């Protein structure tokens, strides 16, 4: 009798190592095209160096050197001045996938799964058959260790090809040399150069040096000498915890009683909250967490949502800060205006996060192009899948016309601007393993929108001020230079007296024009005062005509106050845009000389720059 088929099949079934899995699925980790493979390797190496330096309180000084290694291969060297790696750990860190210090900690960090650099080592050996060489030194008086490593893909364990102590003229740091099938590209967004530039913008404390294959060296100098506060590790927050996770925690906890388990396994659960949760869930605070059933775990999850629990602590996050984003943008772009904002922390699915944003405008940036978007997650530039990223979608949701930027087709705005968005979180919800794009998490998108609207408002204020100034300058040019010359030239050609350009000046400026005319009338003089509003805003003013002569038949009637020898005649006037008013009165018994030498009119309640033909004084005028 034949064996059952299942037994036959069972012979072929066996576990596969993570290394074997990625050997076959390297595109998941970002090693698909030749240019991208190099970029991914650089990114993993530089991220590790930055994280290590920050944790050790060292100002990072990182060198990336790329050489042409013949054929389709390039050689990559990444060297840092970080804390170094202890001898025993070197093989595992570089030649074992999923080995790392950050996976189990809840805090903001660049790398998380411990795949990055070992994936680069794996890719290198797969495409060139070469081992990866590492030198690391942890202190000036300690030896520098040299390793040549490959990964045994069937066991996911490091294989040491060579191990020795070497001379290394550094006091401390790590150097990794890889050779891989890859290519160095320039002049596009997804390039090593642009990646380092972006990294330099949000890591203003780092000095990054790039040596290109032709020997050309580019240094992104640091702007500050302050190392960012390292993020703190926190316990998981009850909000957003999943049922399976809770069951796992209950089963493997060291605590013997439920209430202390809750209190010491989660952030933001104190003595009272732990008691309250147990009470609402009808569970005994003294019960052994190991004995709880599925139904009990479900109850606890439900109660987490009902009981008020404070938001997670945010010292686990390490924002770049408004001033450093400003410095970073200022350092790498030549622009006219920068606005930045760092928002307060918020929570998505129990993970604290915060959003920072900035806009750089004008200067040498292209006027017609789409705005350049710089996306960052935990200080790491995101270079691929811009169109599929929640940050981009949030940018597209904003109506940029309201903030003085064009938005052709309602998508990414256009204009001479760079938009920068940084999302920091203990858990960034990426759309895929290669960590290129942030998922469309509503809480994150809402924060991105609020941050950008904030800097957008500042941009709009800046631009409208600029516009107002340039309009004002233009009008001044007309009034001071052009109009007087036109008037002089036309009167010269016609041989006539130069005309008075004051009324036209008022028209061009959009100002209030006050003109007084006197003409002989019977035994005295008739006075007419014209007040015209050429502006597009209303004026509420008091007009003062102060002199010693008695006024007759005034229309409209003034309010007259005696001031010793003189009398002050005042009219209260409200002139809407484009309106005109004429005041008429009669001066009996004055001579021509007296009538033509009346003191100047005074306008109260308008800015000096806004009045022509009268003196303006500030003052309060009620409506």
């Amino acid at each position, binding site marked *: 009798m034949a064996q059952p088929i299942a037994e036959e099949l069972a012979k072929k079934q066996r576990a596969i190592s993570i290394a074997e899995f990625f050997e076959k699925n390297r595109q998941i980790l970002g090693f698909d095209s030749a240019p991208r493979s190099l970029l991914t390797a650089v990114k993993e190496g530089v991220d590790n160096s930055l994280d290590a330096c920050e944790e050790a309180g060292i100002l990072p000084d990182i060198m990336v050197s790329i050489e042409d290694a013949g054929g389709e291969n390039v050689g990559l060297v990444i060297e840092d001045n970080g804390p170094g790696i202890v001898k025993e750990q070197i093989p595992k860190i570089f030649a074992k996938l999923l080995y790392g210090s950050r996976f189990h900690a809840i805090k903001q960090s660049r790398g998380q799964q411990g795949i990055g650099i070992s994936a680069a080592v794996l890719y290198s050996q797969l495409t060139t058959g070469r081992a990866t060489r590492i030198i690391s030194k942890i202190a000036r008086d300690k030896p520098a260790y040299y390793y040549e490593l490959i990964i045994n893909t069937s066991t996911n364990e490091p294989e040491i090809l060579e191990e020795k102590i070497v001379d290394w003229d550094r006091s401390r740091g790590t150097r990794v040399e890889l050779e891989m099938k890859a290519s160095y590209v320039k002049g596009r967004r997804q390039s090593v150069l642009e990646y380092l530039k972006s990294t330099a913008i949000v890591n203003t404390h780092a000095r990054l040096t790039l040596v290109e294959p032709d020997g050309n060296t580019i240094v992104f100098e640091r702007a500050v000498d302050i190392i960012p506060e390292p993020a703190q590790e926190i316990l998981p927050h009850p909000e957003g915890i999943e049922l399976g996770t809770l069951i796992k925690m209950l089963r493997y906890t060291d605590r013997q009683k439920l209430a202390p388990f809750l209190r010491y396994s989660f952030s933001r659960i104190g003595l009272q909250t732990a008691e309250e949760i147990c009470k609402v869930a009808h569970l005994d605070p003294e019960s052994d967490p190991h004995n709880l059933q599925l139904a009990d775990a479900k109850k606890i999850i439900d109660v987490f949502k009902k009981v008020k629990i404070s938001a997670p602590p945010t010292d686990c996050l390490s924002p770049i800060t408004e001033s450093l984003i400003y410095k970073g943008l200022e350092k790498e772009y030549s622009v006219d205006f920068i606005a930045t904002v760092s928002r307060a922390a918020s929570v998505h699915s129990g993970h604290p996060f915060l959003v920072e944003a900035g806009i750089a405008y004008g200067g040498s940036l292209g006027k017609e192009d789409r705005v350049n978007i710089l996306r960052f997650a935990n200080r790491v530039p995101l270079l691929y899948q811009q169109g599929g990223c929640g940050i981009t979608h949030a940018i597209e949701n904003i109506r940029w016309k309201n903030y003085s930027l064009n938005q052709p087709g309602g998508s990414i705005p256009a204009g001479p601007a760079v938009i920068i968005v940084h999302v920091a979180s203990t858990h960034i919800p990426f759309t895929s393993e290669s960590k290129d794009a942030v998922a469309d998490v509503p809480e994150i998108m809402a924060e991105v929108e609020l941050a950008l609207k904030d800097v957008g408002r500042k941009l709009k204020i800046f631009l409208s001020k600029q516009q107002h100034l340039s309009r004002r300058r233009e009008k001044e040019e007309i009034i001071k230079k*052009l*109009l007087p010359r*036109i008037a002089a*030239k*036309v009167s010269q*050609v016609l041989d006539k007296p130069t005309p008075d*350009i004051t009324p036209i000046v008022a*028209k061009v400026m959009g100002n209030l024009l006050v003109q007084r005319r006197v003409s002989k009338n019977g035994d005295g003089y008739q006075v007419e005062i014209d007040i015209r509003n050429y502006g597009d805003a209303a004026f509420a003013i008091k007009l003062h005509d102060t002199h010693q002569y008695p006024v007759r038949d005034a229309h409209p009637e003034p309010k007259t106050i005696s001031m010793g020898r003189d009398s002050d005649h005042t009219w209260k006037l409200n002139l809407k845009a484009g309106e005109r008013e004429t005041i008429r009165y009669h001066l009996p018994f004055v001579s021509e000389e007296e009538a033509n030498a009346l003191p100047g009119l005074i306008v109260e309640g308008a800015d000096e720059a806004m009045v022509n033909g009268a003196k303006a004084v500030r003052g309060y005028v009620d409506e």
Partner: protein
Amino acid sequence: MSEQKQQRDKVAKKALLGIIEQFYDQFEHQKVPNIVMPTRTKANIEYNNDSEVWVYGDSTSVRSAKTVKGANQILKMSYVVELLIKEHLENNRGSTLRELYYISENWDIAKFNEQPESDRMIEDLEIISALQREYFHMRPEEDGATLFGSLKLKETTKRGERIIHCRDDVGEGGYQIPFNVENVEFLEHDAKFIIAIETGGMHARLIENGFDEDHNAILVHLKGQPARSTRRMLKRLNEELDLPVVVFTDGDPWSYRIFASVAYGAIKSAHMSEFMATPAAKFIGVQPSDIVEYDLSTDKLTDQDIKALHSELSDPRFDSEYWKTQIQLQLDIGKKAEQQAFAGKGLDFVTQRYLPERLTEMGII
């Protein structure tokens, strides 16, 4: 100075002073100085049924001193008008467009930044005043073309009046058309028609073969795209002497445009069309159908030629059965021919066969 010229100067001065007076009045009436102009775009060009030429339409735009650009233009216009009145008209002087640009060097902020700007200003003044630049003594840069034939005329020059016979008193180069055709008075002629010729080679061929004497023709050399004075001369000969005008060019799209500018006016100078275009002018050749009929030696149409022919198919000036058939034929055969291609049939072919046959066909001889 002839009485006619004095009269014209008076008209010009009055028109120019009117512009300045308008600005002055605007100051006096407390208006921001401004001037209304026809909009000078393709969209504002329309066919005038009475004069049968293309002129500007009703759309206007205002240049106002409310903007820096408008104020600048009005200031520059005031300076130019002053020059035209005080130097040109009152002192009987003249300048070229290039000279005007250099003269403005001394005008401080009113100076022109580049010559096209001052050229445009003269065009503006032509449009506003409805007078040609010749009235303002603005001379063109280029030489006028030449005229050869049995025509006696009187030209008023700076050095007095000259009576010239355009065949007997001139060399083989012919009579040079002056920049201001208005200074010419036609005295007598025994011509039956005028033939305007694009290229120098063909012009010389007709003179050498005595075509003017054999057929009582006046030969006008267009020298490529004809100058204003040449077009004005053709119009005056056509209207005042009642002589038919035929245009003889190469057989390619650019030459058809030369014909169109003679017959219907150019878009760039639509304000002058009624003054310079000769709607009665007829195209004599080289026709695309001649290329086929006489099996002329040819060149292949370039991509630009083909593009130009297609654009002519949608050009209202070529919207006739004749042109549509000819242009379509040319596109079909993909060839173009020069006037000189007739030389392949013998040096006398064009004067003995082609032109007499065509002129008979067209009812001119």
